[in-house]
């Protein structure tokens, strides 16, 4: 994703890593500020990086007081105070970030990167854990005892936090990159390039259910104990929930919303679901107990959404630096290679062992 959207109570932040903009839009005043213009002199003269694969990532702390994102230039983690939108600090990362989250209670920034490492930015960065391929999503449990990560190698992993070296479970079964995960009560929900959503028992590590959405899944985000699902190169957003059926937990698709244009990112604040498409921003609210998904389009909000949509239109998307496109293409390549391999290898590698009579 070269774009991302992040929301707190009073602000919507739109960032595009390709054009190197991070626009903070105040829902109260209507003011817009580009954080990237205020990173400091040192970053002014660096040319825009349009060769490395990058993924725009950003996050608000749970209390909304801090904001962190990765600008286009350099391997930076830029941290902001949201009360007056002043720069707290620019930290240097070991590798390009693919994910930024805050711990839910202690406001520690946790960053996953392209190499597969996850760092917590306490006073000094601490390496929490490592995967053998790129980290694609991170979730930290509400009690901050566990961290869930997923990667480009089809793996979902639950580790202890902060001692991420101690792995609780690998949840294996996906057949392509795992692009998104979220925690729903005692479950882990994962979505993958293999088109499936999978529901796992957090305490036992077992697979409970699997649902195909027929398109590679690009991101999964928790909202009010349900989840919103974004698909690769698609105009659809699915809202799903977990449901107990005949004593088994299952994934139930409760609604599919179709937009005029491709969806670029989803953001959640409380019961609000924000959707960024190629040229617009939408807002919905979710009433989980009644399974109601409501589009907000009163005059005041419509005006704000229009302003936001106009900001989006100034963004461009460079395909060759788009990490998700890269992952998708790589998956397709691999499928072709497997097909070819299966056609060519008439003799299986392992032949039956024949026994000699004694």
């Amino acid at each position, binding site marked *: 994703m070269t774009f991302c959207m992040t929301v707190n109570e009073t602000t919507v932040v739109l960032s595009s890593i390709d054009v190197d903009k991070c626009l903070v839009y105040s829902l109260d005043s209507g003011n817009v500020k580009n954080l990237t213009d205020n990173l400091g002199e040192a970053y002014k003269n660096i040319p825009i990086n349009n060769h490395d694969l990058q993924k725009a990532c950003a996050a608000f702390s749970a209390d909304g007081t801090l904001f962190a994102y990765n600008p286009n230039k350099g391997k930076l983690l830029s941290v902001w105070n949201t009360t007056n939108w002043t720069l707290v600090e620019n930290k240097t990362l070991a590798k390009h970030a693919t994910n930024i989250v805050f711990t839910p209670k202690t406001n520690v920034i946790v960053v996953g990167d392209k190499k*597969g*490492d996850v760092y917590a930015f306490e006073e000094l960065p601490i*390496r929490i*854990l*490592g*995967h*053998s*391929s790129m980290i694609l999503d991170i979730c930290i449990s509400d009690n901050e005892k566990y961290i869930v990560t997923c990667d480009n*190698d*089809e*793996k979902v992993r639950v*580790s*202890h936090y902060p*001692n*991420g*070296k*101690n*792995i609780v*479970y*690998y949840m*294996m*079964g*996906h*057949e392509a990159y795992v692009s998104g995960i979220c925690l729903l009560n005692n479950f882990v929900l994962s979505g993958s390039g293999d088109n499936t959503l999978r529901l796992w028992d957090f305490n036992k*590590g077992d697979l409970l259910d699997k649902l195909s959405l027929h398109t590679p899944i690009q991101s999964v985000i928790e909202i009010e104990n349900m989840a919103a699902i974004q698909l690769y190169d698609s105009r659809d957003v699915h809202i799903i929930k977990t449901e107990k059926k005949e004593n088994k937990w299952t994934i139930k698709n409760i609604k599919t919303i179709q937009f005029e244009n491709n969806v670029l990112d989803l953001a959640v604040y409380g019961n609000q679901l924000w959707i960024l498409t190629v040229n617009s921003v939408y807002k919905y609210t979710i009433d989980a107990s009644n399974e109601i998904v409501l589009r907000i389009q009163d005059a005041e909000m419509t005006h704000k959404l229009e302003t936001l949509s106009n900001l989006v239109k100034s963004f461009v998307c460079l395909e060759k630096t788009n990490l998700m496109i890269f992952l998708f293409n*790589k998956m397709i390549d*691999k499928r072709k*290679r*497997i097909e070819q*391999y299966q056609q060519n290898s008439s003799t299986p*590698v*392992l*032949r*039956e*062992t*024949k*026994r*000699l009579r*004694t």
Partner: protein
Amino acid sequence: MEKIKRPLNEDETEKQELSLPQKKYYRQRAHSNPIADHDFDYPSCPEAYDWSTLYPDITNEKSNIYNKRVEMLDIGCGYGGLLVTLSPMFMDSMILGMEIRVKVSQYVIERIKALRANQPNCYDNIACIRTNAIKYLPNFFKKGQIKKMFFLYPDPHFKKSKHKWRIINDTTLSEYAYVLAEEALVYTVTDVKDLHEWMVKHFSEHGLFKRVEDDDLKGDPVVDKLYESSEEGKKVTRNNGDKFLAVFMRIKDPDL
């Protein structure tokens, strides 16, 4: 190789299977990049793997390994010398060699096939697969499944920039700890002092391993076999090289 169209008669089968494969036909460049994503021959999860293709005896009720699962791993098993040595020592355990080089693993597969044919009811508990052990252990094994793990003469990757390729590092150790049972043992041997120190440092600092003191290794029948069972071990002996041993135990997380 000549292709034989008709089915082999008994004599011919015998001849074919009795001859052990020759190493010279299975040589391959020493280092393949273990991080490159070129392989796909792995199960998506442990349940998806049919182990009877490697160990036909696991479906045989009379066998020692009936219904069992792999408990010992030789990571980077090379030409398989250790597997062959361990097989009769642990008749009741399934032992697996994992080797990334295609030809080398094929050699081991052929070797085991020939050994089984030569000595029926022996060597049914060992097998070898071609895979990247750095990436795919959780695809093959469940948490806490493995009781013994061997790293004999792992590639040293001398250059500092290549250290990340070393098979023992922070990232891989967590994965090894995951598939290892508590109190399981990891045996390492190398002729490279710097690599020995690197391994000791990484295992000791990881938190889920404890070094087993030399005194406590005296009763372990495996230890004596580690130096020379494998092909690399024999080579080091021929060259009068050093041999450094270090054994570690998987311990409970002391902080939990």
